[in-house]
């Protein structure tokens, strides 16, 4: 026979014999369990986000309130960071300037500088002659032309004294300063950078202020989130009770609320970042204009990458912790009837 009819063989798929009516109490092998776990988390993550988006208005209000609180503390933080940069540019040395009396000759001044140098507490001594001082004044003060018109150099000889760092002790410095003041050659002695030290002390206070303010506002964020989640829990009471009745674990019930807290915190962090950045952008131009008038040493500092990450992380964690507190104390009272 030439023609053989091809017989189509129906492939019988081996059907996995599953017991007809059996409950799967907990997933079988590890892979199944992992998939189940992943499904549960994905479900909670997206259902909580969906629910927040659905309740646009109240979600937006909560986020704005939290964002303002977070922006306040991070804004204060960035303000201090900027001031710190400013103070950091100024070296806080204990340099003392001795302005010598007008009738002291350069030779005598040089001799006087030599005797100062012999003091073991002195690190460095620099003599600035009248001519050098005038030169410097011409270059930096902007009054060069005016100086030219003077008949006589009005500037005194200056000796810059840098005490050793071991002499950090302010009292010892004061004693040294007083000694200089009493010297016959010295007309006037002053500690140059004392104001920097004062500024730095103020900065230290400001830094602590930021920490305290952040703690306070952080607690505020925590409780606002907690209250939001408490309302949410109250609104979804039926759902929680029904879920419990059909075998939901506490983990399953907690998860969407924890994710809600996470989203609230996260979006508040993002909004706070925008608030701070926009404020800094508004301030940037006038500050840099001002900075331009002072040797251009100062540039506005924005929230950096690490700081932004920290901001988002802290606000998300506050959201999660806030909702956890509520779940921990409120959910026990929700018993199915």
């Amino acid at each position: 026979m030439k023609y053989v009819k091809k017989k189509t063989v129906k492939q019988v798929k081996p059907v996995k014999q599953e017991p007809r009516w059996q409950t799967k109490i907990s997933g079988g092998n590890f892979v199944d369990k992992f998939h189940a776990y992943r499904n549960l988390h994905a479900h909670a993550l997206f259902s909580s986000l969906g629910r927040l988006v659905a309740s646009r208005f109240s979600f937006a209000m909560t986020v704005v309130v939290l964002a303002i609180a977070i922006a306040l503390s991070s804004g204060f933080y960035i303000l201090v960071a900027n001031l710190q940069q400013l103070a950091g540019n100024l070296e806080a040395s204990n340099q003392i300037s001795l302005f010598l009396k007008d009738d002291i000759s350069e030779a005598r001044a040089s001799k006087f500088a030599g005797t100062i140098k012999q003091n073991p507490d002195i690190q460095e001594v620099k003599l600035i002659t009248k001519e050098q001082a005038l030169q410097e004044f011409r270059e930096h003060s902007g009054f060069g032309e005016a100086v030219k018109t003077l008949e006589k150099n009005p500037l005194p000889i200056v000796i810059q004294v840098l005490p050793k760092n071991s002499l950090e002790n302010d009292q010892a410095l004061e004693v040294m300063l007083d000694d200089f003041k009493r010297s016959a050659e010295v007309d006037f002695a002053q500690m140059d950078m004392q104001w920097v030290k004062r500024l730095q002390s103020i900065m230290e206070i400001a830094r602590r202020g930021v920490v305290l303010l952040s703690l306070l506002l952080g607690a505020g964020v925590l409780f606002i989130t907690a209250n939001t989640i408490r309302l949410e829990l109250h609104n979804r009471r039926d759902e929680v009770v029904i879920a419990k009745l059909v075998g939901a674990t506490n983990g399953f019930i907690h998860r969407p609320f924890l994710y809600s807290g996470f989203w609230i915190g996260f979006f508040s962090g993002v909004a706070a970042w925008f608030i701070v950045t926009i404020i800094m952008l508004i301030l940037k131009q006038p500050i840099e204009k001002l900075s331009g008038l002072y040797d251009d040493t100062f540039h506005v500092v924005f929230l950096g990458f690490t700081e932004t990450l920290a901001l988002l992380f802290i606000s998300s964690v506050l959201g999660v912790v806030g909702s956890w507190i509520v779940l921990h104390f409120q959910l026990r009272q929700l018993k199915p009837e």
Partner: protein
Amino acid sequence: MLEFDNVSMRYPGAGDVLRNVSFHLQRGEMTFLTGHSGAGKSTLLKLIALIERCSRGRVLLDGQDLNQAKDRQVPFIRRKVGLIFQDYKLLQDRTVFDNVALPLVIAGYGHHEVSRRVRASLDKVGLLGKERKYPAVLSGGEQQRVGIARAVVNKPPMILADEPTGNLDPELSTEIMHLFEQFQQVGVTILIASHDISLINQMNHRILKLDHGQLVAS
């Protein structure tokens, strides 16, 4: 499947709600629980669903002593029991599909498996095609069938129904009862609390009768 061994239940201030109740349900048995209001029917069901724990005696479900169950085991025991309520207890803001899918989502089933099982379950109760509807637009009988679909969707070995036909007319009630019989035929143990004596008598199944917390007929 289910065994009550000298079970007593006392609420503080209310005295004994159940007194020395003992009975045994075989796997695949369909049983009615009846008695006047306040006879302890709901309390008895609550003990099985672990909403309450008995004061004395033992409740054994599938060989497990429910009084010994730890709190973290409770959800897993509840997954063995499909619950059906007089007021259906459906989530009004979710579609029929989402309502029925809830036990599967809780158990962590994947999307496709959930979809397949929900459809199968809705098919069984005759509501295939109404997945996208919201409970509010369904009739009472349909809502109860959604409740039943939810109770059976993860194939529990036991179904508990508390006055499942309490809000339904006689015709729908009979329909619902026949639906239960279909589940019994595939081996599910069913316990239905009801005070609708005429309906119960029609059905020709075992009847447990409670009177003031005591089992008077079995």
